[in-house]
């Protein structure tokens, strides 16, 4: 390993590193504004100047490659003076409005000027001012504060893949803007706020609502899609003020999607705060006793086979497990988690996981999307695919047209016939596939919804087994599930299927059920008739609308819970705030119901429930770890029909009850609809 001398200390570094990275290895802090690990190097803020031996001038360490034998000094007088000089220039045009700036308290410029700057200004001329720019409903701009680090420009072109932000003009007249001040058409746009080292880009919904030091920070995970991005929930009293990403190299790196970040205002609206009972077609506020009694009465007079339960998209593992136990006590097997009938085979764990893992996307050398639209189904995962596309030039193919994915891909065909040809090795694509060592096949729910869904899944799996692409080193089979509760529900076999895969949906259509228990389930579409509907959840949304009894329960930020993401990684979601009104934790409600029904508790305490849940997770290794690998079992499914693969439209900003309650999300959605209608963004 080559060696570099930093402040008189010899340090080993890896070839290809920059001086700044080598300094970080030596645990020497280098101030910076424009440099960011995950973006390309710009070298335009000059804050990272260090002294290099034999160089007459200080060098920008972020852009200088480290070389064997270099002697770097970061604590000399020259460096200190250079930093002060740069700082003075940056502050020459930066307004002194920290007291009214939302970045105050977490501002890089503020912090660094304290440590490396001068305490006085010698600049007596007029400061420049720049007009505010419109960047959509999520990003608030105050462009006078901008120091032109161009992080946002690089983020939008490189990571988000929507080159819409740019720097116009030059010199003193340089300004950062989106093209003609349109809102940014990306699901990752909120991340520019975290990237901005000053208060030029701040969060619009969070504007002037709190200071960072008065917020309580809780490390948690996101459940609004199946990726399980790591987040930090910032609360002020009861209110969730904002949601920020947390670094997790295995999942979200340091980005989160706009839905994750901005749905939090939905946690304050449309909340169910007490139990309700429907009387004379009106929902009347009632007490817990009355509500539970009504349910138990109904349960006792109904045949267990006519009681059905449906689990929603945001339900955690504990609740799922307790729900299943409760239904076992009742003696009903009519449990379902799917919102639409699609093929899934819960016998092997790998049948419903993203087996290659999110990190594996970067290792892969070929990606094939089968009826999936990762941009809207799993935004953060799509950012990884884009990263692989950008850094490794991974070729990407698709069967079915998912629309713009922020990277180039080739459509192989639009029907199931193409898949059949590939399985029978008659397609041109097979040559490419045979040459690939680590291919990645991503099957979306849209493909599994087809009549040949079973064929697509089982035969593709058999094909991959035959090709030796499913083993403990590399598993090319990936299912892209959309809901945070899906993997957990499949682990506990919350699925009611027969040969045709849609038992539950047929029964609900034929009005076979007398009681329907919706556990946080808002996306199940059915025509309500005679059924007695119980809704247990946090938001007054579609499910609560048709309910006869409503039981209030906490949202995901208000109770501790385990979730399994689409890779099968078990993660802990932590309680950051308190449930609204009289809401009681989900498992406690089920416990109470069971007590009233059978005169015994399901679980004695939360810990015993959690223990049992962890015991029952299939192939469980450890929390935050990927599951164990088990040899796949084979199943033959020959029901093939030549069908067109139609990718179902995803209402991205409105996919769950929390987002639907959020004002910010509905603003985003209306802008999206407007641009879709006009056909073009400009």
């Amino acid at each position, binding site marked *: 390993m080559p060696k570099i001398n930093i402040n008189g200390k010899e340090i080993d570094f890896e070839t290809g590193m920059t001086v700044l990275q080598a300094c970080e290895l030596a645990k020497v802090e280098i101030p910076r504004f424009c440099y960011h690990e995950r973006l390309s190097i710009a070298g335009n803020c000059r804050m990272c100047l260090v002294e290099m031996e034999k160089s007459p001038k200080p060098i920008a360490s972020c852009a200088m490659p480290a070389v064997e034998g270099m002697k770097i000094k970061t604590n000399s007088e020259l460096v200190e003076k250079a930093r002060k000089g740069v700082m003075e220039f940056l502050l020459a045009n930066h307004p002194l409005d920290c007291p009214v700036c939302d970045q105050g308290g977490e501002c890089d410029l503020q912090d660094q000027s304290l440590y490396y700057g001068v305490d006085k200004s010698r600049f007596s001329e007029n400061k420049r001012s720049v007009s505010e720019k419109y960047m959509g409903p999520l990003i608030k701009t105050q462009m006078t504060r901008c120091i032109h680090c161009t992080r946002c420009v690089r983020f939008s*072109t490189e990571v988000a893949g929507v*080159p*819409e*932000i*740019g*720097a*116009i*003009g*030059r010199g003193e*007249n340089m300004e950062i803007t*989106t*093209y*003609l001040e349109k809102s940014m058409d990306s699901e990752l746009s909120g991340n520019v706020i975290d990237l901005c080292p000053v208060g030029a880009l701040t969060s619009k919904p969070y504007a002037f609502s709190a200071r960072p030091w008065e917020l309580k920070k809780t490390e948690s995970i996101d459940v609004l899609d199946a990726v399980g991005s790591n987040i930090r929930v910032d609360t002020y009293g009861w209110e969730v003020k904002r949601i920020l990403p947390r670094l997790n190299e295995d999942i979200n790196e340091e980005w989160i999607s706009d839905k994750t970040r901005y749905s939090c205002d939905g946690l304050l609206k449309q909340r169910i705060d007490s139990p309700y009972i429907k009387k004379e077609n009106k929902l009347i506020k009632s007490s817990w006793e009355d509500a539970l009694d009504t349910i138990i009465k109904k349960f006792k007079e109904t045949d267990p086979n006519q009681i059905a339960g449906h689990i929603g998209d945001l339900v955690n593992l504990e609740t799922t497990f307790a729900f299943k136990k409760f239904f076992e006590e009742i003696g009903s097997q009519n449990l379902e988690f799917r919102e639409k009938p699609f093929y899934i085979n819960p016998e092997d764990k790998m049948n419903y996981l993203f087996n290659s893992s999110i990190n594996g996307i970067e290792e892969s050398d070929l990606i094939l999307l089968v009826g999936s639209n990762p941009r809207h189904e799993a935004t953060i995962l799509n950012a990884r695919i884009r990263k692989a596309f950008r850094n490794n030039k991974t070729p990407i193919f698709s069967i079915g047209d998912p629309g713009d994915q922020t990277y180039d891909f080739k459509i192989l065909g639009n029907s199931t016939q193409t898949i059949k040809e590939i399985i029978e090795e008659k397609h041109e694509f097979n040559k490419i596939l045979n040459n690939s060592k680590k291919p990645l096949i991503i099957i979306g729910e849209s493909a599994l919804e087809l009549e040949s869904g079973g064929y697509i899944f089982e035969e593709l799996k058999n094909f991959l087994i035959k090709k030796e692409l499913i083993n403990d080193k590399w598993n090319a089979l990936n299912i892209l599930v959309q809901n945070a509760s899906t993997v957990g529900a499949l682990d506990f076999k919350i699925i009611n299927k027969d040969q045709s895969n849609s038992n539950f949906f047929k029964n609900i259509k034929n009005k076979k059920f007398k009681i329907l228990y919706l556990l946080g389930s808002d996306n199940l579409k059915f025509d309500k008739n005679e059924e007695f509907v119980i809704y247990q959840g946090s938001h007054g949304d579609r499910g609560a609308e048709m309910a006869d009894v409503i039981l209030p329960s906490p949202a995901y930020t208000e109770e501790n819970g385990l979730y399994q993401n689409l890779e099968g990684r078990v993660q802990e979601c932590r309680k950051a705030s308190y449930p609204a009104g009289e809401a009681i934790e989900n498992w406690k409600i089920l416990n109470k119901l069971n007590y009233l029904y059978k005169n015994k508790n399901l679980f004695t305490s939360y810990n015993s429930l959690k223990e049992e849940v962890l015991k029952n997770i299939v192939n469980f290794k450890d929390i935050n770890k990927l599951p164990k690998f088990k040899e796949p079992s084979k199943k033959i499914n020959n029901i093939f029909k030549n069908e067109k693969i139609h990718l179902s439209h995803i209402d991205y900003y409105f996919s769950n009850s929390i987002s639907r309650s959020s004002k910010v999300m509905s603003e985003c959605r209306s802008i999206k609809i407007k641009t879709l209608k006009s056909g073009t963004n*400009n």
Partner: protein
Amino acid sequence: MSLKKVNPEQPKNFEFSSNYKKIAEEILKKYPNENKKSAVMPFLYLAQKQNSNWIPLAAIKYISKYLSMPYINVYEVATFYSMFNLSPVGKYFLQVCTTTPCLIRGADKIVKVCKQKISEKENHLTKNGECSWAEVECLGACVNAPMMQINEDYYEDLDEKSTVKIIDSILNNKILKPGSYRGRKNTSPENEKKINGNDYA
């Protein structure tokens, strides 16, 4: 500085005329296909030339589609260079050099004439919308100072009288010959016709 504000009134469509399209295709041949966006500056120049000295947004869109670039990147280039105009400057665009050598030789008098004849403020069009003027930095013809540029031609060795003559004629849609207005041939010396015994006249 040239105009960097985007004109509020914009034509809806823009396309290269068949003539310009041919030139554009020739320009494209200079670059490998994967680097065709290198042609953005000559393309913007062509668009500006075709559209009486200014670039409408429709042209920015047209060029970005032509070269498969994001709109913002073409827009960045167009706003960066002072010689691209984003608002109408008229059929005749006068750029008066007012950098030191020209100023010493009386550029302020030319500016005065422009103010009288064209518009009180720079970058404002005449009433018929066909002509405007702007002060610019050094145009690199100091040896013939003072000078101005009309569209693509240099008018050099000016004084008040000759400037009035030139402006009057372009306002009547007549273009005078470019070059020196004191009878000089290019940049040759004026009074000392003999240098080292050689006749340079």
